[in-house]
C-alpha cells in the first residue's frame, strides 16, 4: 500500500524508540520486531510526526527538501508496513 504523506501519523503506542549515533533503534512490543532508522534526519521526522497535521508537514519541519521527499515517503512507508507508525485517529484527540 502506498504511503499517504498527507495523513496525520504518529509512532505506535507499543513502540519504543532509542536514538543512536547513526539514527535510532525502534522496538515494537506487540510484533516483537526490531527496526532502525538509518539516519538522524529520519529520526527528526519520526519524532515530529505527532505534532503535525500531516507527515509531509512533519518532513518539511524537520528540514527534508522537496527533492528528498520521495526517499522519506518510502522510508515512512516501510515503517507503516511494519506497524511502527500509524495514522492518528479519534483516539488521539481525547487525550
Amino acid at each position, binding site marked *: 500500500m502506498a504511503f499517504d504523506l498527507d495523513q496525520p501519523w504518529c509512532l505506535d503506542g*507499543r513502540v*519504543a524508540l*532509542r*536514538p*543512536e*549515533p*547513526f*539514527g535510532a*533503534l525502534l*522496538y*515494537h*512490543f*506487540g*510484533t*516483537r*520486531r*526490531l*527496526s*532502525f*532508522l*538509518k*539516519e538522524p*534526519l*529520519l529520526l527528526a521526522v519520526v519524532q515530529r510526526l505527532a505534532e503535525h497535521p500531516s507527515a509531509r508537514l512533519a518532513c518539511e519541519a524537520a528540514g527534508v527538501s522537496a527533492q528528498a521527499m520521495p*526517499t522519506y515517503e518510502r*522510508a*515512512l512507508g*516501510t*515503517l507503516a508496513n*511494519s506497524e*511502527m507508525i500509524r495514522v492518528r485517529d479519534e483516539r488521539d484527540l481525547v487525550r
Partner: protein
Amino acid sequence: MSVLPLTAQFARGLSAPICLTWELTYACNLSCVHCLSSSGRRDPRELSTAQCQAVIDELERMQVFYVNIGGGEPTVRPDFWELVDYAVSRRVGVKFSTNGVKITPAAARRLTGTDYIDVQISLDGATEEVNDAVRGTGSYQTALAAMSHLAQAGFRGFKLSVVVTRQNVGQLDEFAALARRYDAQLRLTRLRPAGRGASVWHELHPTAQQQRQLYDWLVLHGENVLTGDSFFHLSGFGQALPGLNMCGAGRVVCLIDPVGDVYACPFAIHENFLAGNVRDDGGFARVWRESELFGSLRQPQSAGACTSCSAFDACGGGCMAAKFFTGLPLDGPDPECVRGHGEAALAQVDASPPVPSPDHSRRSRPVPVTIARRRPPDRACDQSPLAEFGSGAG
C-alpha cells in the same frame, strides 16, 4: 543515506545493547550436558532482589527495550515473578528462557496478555528420546506440559527454542510441526562450545554435511523461523541468511551473569571476556560504555587467516566464542567454517583449549564427557546472541 553500512555502525558499538542476556541464577533443576553457563548450583554471591531492581532501573534509563532472562533456570528464583513484574512496570520487556518447570496453568495465565513478556521453552529433541538424552529424563514431558499450559491460556507465539545438534538436526520439520501444534514460533540456535557445551561439542555439533542440510532448510523456511542470527557462519554457503550476519559480542550484545559480572556474550563466560561488574562504580552503563574490553572489540578486527577467503564478507570469520573454546585463534576460521578451514585448523590445535569458567555444575553429578542414554536431569540454556531483526527503514 548513511555513510557506513548499518553493520559497520553496529560494530562500533551502540549507546546500549540491542540484545542483553541476563542470567538470573546459576541454580537449575536440570543439568543439560551442553549448558552454556555450566549451571546447577546457586552462587551465594548472586544479586539480591534489590540489586536486580537497581539493574532494571538502569536498563530503563539506558532505554534497553528488553532483556533475555535465562540462567540456570530463572523461574526457580523465589523473586522471579516479582522481578518480571518490576521490569514490566518500568517498560523493560522480558523474554525469558525456561525448561518449563514452573509454567503451571496459573503461571501461564499470568504471563498471557501483556506485550512486555515473551517466553521461550527450551527443547532439544522433537522426540522424548532425543531430547532427554541431553536435557535429562522427564525434561521432554515438562516442556510439553508447559507448552500446553501456555497454549491453553491463549499465549500466542511463544517460542519453542531448540539448540541444533547432530542428533536433532534431522527433526527440523517435526520441530516446526510441534511449534504449530501449540501456536508457538520455532526458534533454532547454534550449539556453541560454551560452558559444559565445550566438553560435548565434538560429539554434539552438526557434521559438515548436516550444516549444509540446516542451511538449505533455513533458506527454505527462514521467514517463519527465528535464529537469533546465530547461524551467520553458514552464510558462507551463498545466500546470506536473514539477520545482521555479524558477531555482536560487546558491540550489540552482552551478558550479565547471576553475580553481576558482565561478559561480552552469553557464550563467552571466561575471564578473557569479562568487562566488569554491575556493582562497580558507574554500574552497568559504565561497563557497557567505557570498559577496555568492549572498547577493543569495537575497533576494527583483524581477519587473519580468513582475509583472502571469498566467503569472509558473508561469514565475517564466524563466532568468537566457538573459536576460543575450541582452541582456535580469534582471527582464524570458525571451527564449523563451511569451507572446511575450521576442521583443518582444529586438527592443528595441540594445546588444550581454554576451559570455560566459572563452573556451577552440581558436584554430586560430575559432567559426563560422553553422551549416554540415561542421563541425570539437565537444562540447556540457549540465549540468542542477537535480536531478531525486522527490515530497516531509511
